């Protein structure tokens, strides 16, 4: 699946999905994972870390490049998916479910509305290609 219908997107290819209450799961889009190539290193924040929408929350390094990953939504990290840095190939098969990276308890859940919806992201990808 290249795009998840329920997620909101950033132009830097991160997604956020409402989980329950004010908690959102956050990850990298399938497009980003394809572009990165084989991932060799990933740094995720620990639970309790404050993140700000549009600011970096972690680092991903592949055989091609090293990039910051940007938070789609502000809040506190409640959990990080520690399986991913040890086994980044999980992302290739399932970017939007098993491949979630962090869960954020949003300080302002309305920020989700500022993200691109799946149709807008799809359109954005066409301009990228």
């Amino acid at each position, binding site marked *: 699946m290249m795009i998840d219908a329920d997620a909101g997107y950033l132009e830097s290819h991160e997604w956020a999905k409402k989980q329950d209450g004010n908690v959102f799961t956050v990850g990298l889009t399938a497009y980003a994972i394809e*572009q990165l190539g*084989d991932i*060799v*290193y990933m740094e995720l924040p620990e639970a309790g870390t404050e993140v700000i929408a549009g600011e970096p929350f972690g680092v991903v*390094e592949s*055989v*091609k*490049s*090293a990039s910051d990953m940007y938070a789609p939504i502000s809040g506190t990290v409640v959990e990080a998916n520690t399986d991913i840095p040890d086994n980044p190939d999980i992302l290739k098969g399932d970017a939007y479910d098993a491949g979630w990276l962090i869960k954020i308890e949003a300080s302002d859940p309305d920020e989700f509305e500022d993200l691109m919806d799946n149709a807008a992201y799809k359109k954005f990808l066409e301009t990228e290609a």
Partner: protein
Amino acid sequence: MKLVFEKSVEGRRGLRIAKSDVPTSINLNKSLLRENDADLPELSELDVVRHFTKLSRRNFGVDTNFYPLGSCTMKYNPKVCERIAAYPGFAHLHPLLPQLRSGGMLTQGALEVVYEMDMLLREICGMSAFTMQPMAGAHGELTGIMMMAAYHQDKGNKKSIVLAPDSAHGTNPASAAIAGYTVRTVPSDENGLMSIDAMKEMLTDEVAGLMLTCPNTLGLFNPHVKEICDLIHSVDGLVYYDGANLNAIVGKVRPGDLGFDIVHVNLHKTFATPHGGGGPGAGPVGVVDRLVDYLPISTVIKRTDGTFALDYDKPKSIGYIAPFYGNFGIILRAYVYILMLGKEGLERVAENAVLNANYIKEKLKPYYDIEHGQLCKHECVFSATRQAKNGVHALDIAKGLIDAGFHPPTMYFPMIVKEALMIEPTECESKETMDGFIEAMIELAKQCETDPESLKAAPVTTPVGRLDETKAARELNIASV
């Protein structure tokens, strides 16, 4: 090929040392002595010579093949520079000699080389003074940004942001971040140049400076560079010239005349000293008048009697950034190179580097996509997006080039170009060599159409084939081989 240990035969020796007729006594503590003999290979001298000669024939370098690695300026390193650097009067100097009371007099020649190199780089770059100490380009960047910080601190400026375009070398944001600045990335415009409009929006009193590579990593010279420098100066910011691409403009344009305040020069690129495989490099940094006080210590000065000495009397200096006097052997080689070429020769370096890059660009345009196909400077960046549609990526084309006898171009950089193949031929290559490369690239483009799968296996002519690019990073284990 067998490892040297696998060739070992018990009892075989390279030479026999005559038995000592002097009584020996070892006064070392037993705990310091080895219980068993060291596990060394046992070989004859001829075995060893053949082993290492065979290995050396597998080496790939500018001396054996064309090496168009973009942004690295892999030009030929003239042998005369090596020869002069090996003169015993230079090669056998001890780095502490100039510190001795009479040592200054024993090292006048070496100090003069450093002093004269400072003068030559001032003239070439339009700067007021240089430090020769930084050991590489990135080290020069950090030195430059530390001087930028010292300037702002001295003036009581409250600055926290350094700007860099999205086409910058990764070392730019890294250097600024290590010096404690927050880095803001300025996007490129549709012409592949840093967007002035975007920069204007980001320009606040918080901006300490801008780091700019010119021509940039797409090989494009920014025609608005003077306006950019003026804008940065309007908030009392400083403009840093990343000299990685100086080869494109050396002898033609001086960064100082364009408005830059700090410049680093990669001697191992523009001035032809050996690099690849880890250096050693040298990244002298030049500054304009108002920053001279912050240069690292020591610098070489000329006394009124014509002798040379080390000067440590710089109370506002950022201090030591390297032991001793930088990579002296590299400074010396670059000095010889500059004197050998002279003013006219250096101008022709830039002219031919630019001509060669444009020749390759025009010849390959029909076969590979290029987003910014206008007149370039010393390098051009193609995109393998057309080939990627057949499942062949920039990496596969790079590996295919190895089979054709060429070093691959830089891949996947700059990051603003998808499937980037960044080609920098330098001024050194003949038309015949470049034609051979162009032909190989055209063949590969055809192979992408007719037999894309075969490129997935490349290289097949090398001692080892396609390497696993992730294993070492994911399972780092250097203790057991």
